[in-house]
């Protein structure tokens, strides 16, 4: 077992223990780490956004590249997103703060316009195609049985989320079956969430035991 002497590993260890200390009691060491975390992650995001988006897509073609590489037409075109982006600044100037609505409108409108057909394609049409009962279900008894069970499960679960009529009679039976499917579905998510959190904890302990204390390979 040989403890690492690398300053960077020690920084990481101190910060890891700082966050773990919140489990015992909320303390100044934890508060320091948390505020450090918020500041560093925003600074990191700004740096990456500049080098990966703003500089190559806007700054270089507009200001750095000569007219031979980027035609005047394209340069003028780039003025539009630049102006739209600058409108975000107006949010802090009370008199013109409504200008921030222009870039928001552009982003929201574009996003909604792109999302609606894509969601129809992948989440509705494609999923419906997967839900249909096809002649293929007659292949084997268990394939047939589970295909019917799944089909009924989808129908009943959707009926559980039906709000236009009181759940009585047949609708009550359907929504009761639906809730059973939903609960098993949530149970599966619960099981996987436990698995995920445990993996993260194990990952942190592996870091402490291997990179810091050198106790495991």
């Amino acid at each position, binding site marked *: 077992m040989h403890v690492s002497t690398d300053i960077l590993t020690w920084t990481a260890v101190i910060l890891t223990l700082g966050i773990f200390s919140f489990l015992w009691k909320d303390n100044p060491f934890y508060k320091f780490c948390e505020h450090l975390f918020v500041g560093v992650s925003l600074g990191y995001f700004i740096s990456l956004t500049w080098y990966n988006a703003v500089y190559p897509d806007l700054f270089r073609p507009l200001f750095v590249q000569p007219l031979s590489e980027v035609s005047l037409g394209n340069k003028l075109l780039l003025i539009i997103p630049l102006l739209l982006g600058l409108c975000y600044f107006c949010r802090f100037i009370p008199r013109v703060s409504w200008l921030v609505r222009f870039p928001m409108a552009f982003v929201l409108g574009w996003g909604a316009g792109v999302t609606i057909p894509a969601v129809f394609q992948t989440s509705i049409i494609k999923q419906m195609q997967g839900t249909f009962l096809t002649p293929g279900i007659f292949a084997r008894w268990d394939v047939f049985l589970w295909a019917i069970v799944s089909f009924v499960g989808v129908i009943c679960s959707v009926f559980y*989320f039906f709000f236009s*009529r009181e759940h009585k009679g047949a609708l009550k039976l359907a929504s009761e079956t639906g809730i059973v499917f939903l609960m098993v579905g949530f149970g599966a998510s619960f099981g996987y969430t436990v698995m995920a959190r445990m993996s993260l904890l194990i990952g942190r302990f592996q870091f402490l035991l291997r990179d810091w204390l050198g106790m495991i390979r």
Partner: protein
Amino acid sequence: MIALLILLLAAGQVAPLDSGVPALAPPPAPPGAVRAFDTPNDAGKSINVRWSAADKLAETWLVERTEPDSVKVIASNKPGEMSYLDEDVRDGIPYAYRVAAVTAADTVWSEPSPAVTSSPQFFNLSRINILIAMAIFFVLVIYYIETAKKGKNLFVRRIAGLDAVEEAVGRATEMGKPIVYVPGLGSVADIATIASLNILGEVAKKTAQYDSALLVPNRDPIVYTVAREIVKESYTKAGRPDAFKPDSVFFVTSEQFAFAAAVDGLMVREKPATNFFLGMFWAESLVLAETGAQTGAIQIAGTDSVFQLPFFITACDYTLIGEELYAASAYLSREPLLLGSLKGQDYGKMVILLTLVIGSALLLLSRLPALGFFSHVLGFFSTR
């Protein structure tokens, strides 16, 4: 050039150069049904070439393109691949294609296909199914929003979690303990937060009538300002403007876990009779629900985050699952916009279910010999 030489050899019956060559294999039959057509539903500049193999002898296929000023072999395919997508063509120029079956000894060309020009299309026919689905759903949503606007009473069924609200506020008043209402950690743009704020308005009306204490901690500064307005308005509507305490609605912090820790401290100190956790939640939902359960309060939770619902369902007394949260806010606020779009979505779901049932019936019937064409139903739902 080599092809020419081989042809000469075969045609001229000249003795084969090396005697080791076995008797010449019979020449392969030319590929049949050579078809070239402009690739549909695309941005142009691409032509599809298809052919069928007359026999099994061909080892490779050669595809040759003739355009007004040049003739070029553009591809050589393995025996199995009997199609080629030619994408370095220009729109509006006529092209003709020939395909050759090539074996070690022979190259036999097919008849040239009729000339074809590539062109872009203005509508992608393979996406007609998505267009129809969109049209149906848009009509439903807009129709119901309009009817709701005209004041027509739209029925929304009772939701389990909401019955508990009446009882929960009553219990708080009897025990003389406060109610903690957490409108989630999301922002004003999240649907779940908007739904939660609508429900907060109704809960505030009840706490005004019963004169019990209401505490509303917030994580988002904008949600905090909106929440305070809503509670103030509810107290005035309930005829108790004086009972409204401004600092009962307060901003805590925007850091996720610091907020959870602060609300935990509040619940342990105040020992509220009822906790409401309605809105957007992330991993901190566990921290809140656990501490709340420990203090013995009735807990009513609601979120549309599938990952956090399992924790609320097991740790709280009542849970509004996903769309029930939206329906609850439409039900309580009776706001035409919310009612209309909720009804539109409801009947949208019914259209999906109906299509699934009828479609499945047709598909299963398609096994019968006479009704084979029903199998195209599945094709209609394919996506490219």
